[in-house]
């Protein structure tokens, strides 16, 4: 197995508060990984660092063992193949549902490529396929603003898939979903692993159990422990900082 993403002794503080403290994490290509931790454990900052939104004070972040992610901005990380889904569903509200997918599709991202872009039949077919997958085919012409919270979550997942990223960073995908939808999300993410690398940040233990994957527990910006869900749940430290509360 080759390492897709490597965080090596990363630290980052904001006004003296250490959001990330000597964090090291390696995720293999094609792996599905869940990251859990209480509020303030540094999960979001970790994602910001991976996607180039925030630069670490010290430590290295490596993509495919060769590319230094600390030198790259958000757009650059997306172009490398890192797709991010936000905790609060963020879709383009005034655009139609299908336009949201169309704008996420893998295609030229430059000013002039987009100015002269014409939608191909392959793209139209891919849009329909993705809309079907996230069950929004009937809503394709509605403005994304009209969707329910759960539907927006699905739309954003569709947008993420449209990018066809190598690595999916998924922040609390199940928030606002019904139990059945939550299970369907878990199933979808499991099916993506292998072909894609997937990192899921989650609070919902049922959901993490359904993902059935290796779990990393963060605490105060540091990796507390790593292993199967049963293994980490049995760890007394984890129980103390997180599960026991």
């Amino acid at each position, binding site marked *: 197995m080759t390492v897709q993403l490597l965080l090596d002794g990363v630290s980052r503080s904001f006004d003296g508060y250490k959001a990330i403290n000597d964090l090291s994490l390696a995720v293999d290509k094609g792996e599905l990984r869940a990251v859990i931790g209480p509020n303030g454990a540094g999960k979001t900052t970790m994602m910001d660092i991976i*996607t180039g*939104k925030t630069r670490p004070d010290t430590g290295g972040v490596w993509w495919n063992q060769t590319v230094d992610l600390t030198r790259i*901005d*958000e*757009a650059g*990380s*997306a*172009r490398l193949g890192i*797709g*991010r889904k*936000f905790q609060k569903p*963020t*879709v*383009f*509200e*005034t*655009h139609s549902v299908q*336009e949201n997918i*169309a*704008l*996420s599709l893998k295609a030229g*991202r*430059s*000013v002039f490529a*987009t*100015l*002269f*872009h014409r*939608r191909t*039949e*392959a793209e*139209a*077919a891919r849009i*329909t396929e993705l809309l079907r997958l996230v069950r929004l085919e009937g809503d*394709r*012409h509605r403005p994304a603003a009209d969707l329910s919270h759960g539907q927006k979550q699905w739309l954003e997942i569709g*947008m993420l898939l449209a*990018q066809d990223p190598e690595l999916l960073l998924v922040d609390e995908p199940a928030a606002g979903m019904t139990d059945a939808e939550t299970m369907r999300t878990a199933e979808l993410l499991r099916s993506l692993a292998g072909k894609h690398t997937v990192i899921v940040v989650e609070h919902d233990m049922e959901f993490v159990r359904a993902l059935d994957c290796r779990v990393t527990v963060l605490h105060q910006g540091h990796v507390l422990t790593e292993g199967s869900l049963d293994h980490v749940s049995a760890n007394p430290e984890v129980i103390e900082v997180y599960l026991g509360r």
Partner: protein
Amino acid sequence: MTTLIDRRMGIFLAGLFVLTVAIPVGNLAFEGKVVPSYIVSLLGKYLCYALLAVALDLVWGFCGILSLGHGAFFALGGYAMGMHLMREIGDRGVYANPNLPDFMVFLSWDELPWFWMGFGNFWFASLMVMLVPGALAFLFGWFAFRSRVTGVYLSIITQAMTYALQLAFFRNEMGFGGNNGLTDFKDVLGFPLQSDSTRAGLFVLTAVALAAGLLIARAITTSKLGMILVCIRDAESRTRFLGYRVEGFKLFIFVVSAMMAGVAGALYTPQVGIINPGEFSPANSIEVVIWVALGGRGTLVGAALGAILVALAKTLFTGWFPEFWLFALGGLFILVTLFLPTGVLGLIEGVAGSRGRRARRASAALEDGVTEEGAKA
């Protein structure tokens, strides 16, 4: 896919076409008895404002860049054309100096400054009309957008930009006629500016420029790039995470918009007969924002309509109660913000009824059905 000329654009262009034919004919064929000559220049001025409003709508309505300095690009375009018109005067000035404009003779300058070189050529001046505002917008946008200056901070620095230019152009040493600006123009390409036929010609040219500006803006905003501009307006950070370099898109639209504003200014100068530093005044730029808001932000046609309506109201109002115009303008802006979030255009289309809207939606669905079938095949 959206069409280039939708319903509202079609109606507006048709109206503009009727005006373009009727006004010059009404003026020239009846020797100013049906349409007085001053009306031709006045309407021509309104159309210049409309083009400026379309330019602002491109950046503000679609990309969320609230520029409070668009008057600067308009004025620069106006100055570039004014410089050519000054050179056209030749030795017919008060001092009859064949090489220098009057104000330079007055300042006892011996030779033409280097930045006036080439403006004797019409084509060179026409190029500068777009290049100078475009270059300023590029330089300004390059620094501002890369440093991720957004929102109210960006608005303030655009305001500062136009104010700084106003102060600079006031100075005689700048070589642009100082306080008085450029005026006393005689002719353009050999056509006397005072003649009715030249004025009618300029009016037609302005209408053509407005139509072209609207169509270019529409083509841009209906392209994929136009969709991304709206993404940037609504969720800038999300757009970055999709891999789009936001600063590049902002820079592109800002430069295009500045060039469009420059063209509007260039058409304005010969019709008004003067260009002076007052055109850089921050209040002018703010008024442009009011036109766009009043007409309907992000609709292009609405922006043009808003400019024409406010300019018309200003002409009438300043005739009746000159001292109350600014209160009326401010009041109008507040009313529109509170009660007409989609502007006058939204009001008109709302009144026009739901029948047309329903038909349009059905046809849009049909069109997509067709493309979908095509994709499956």
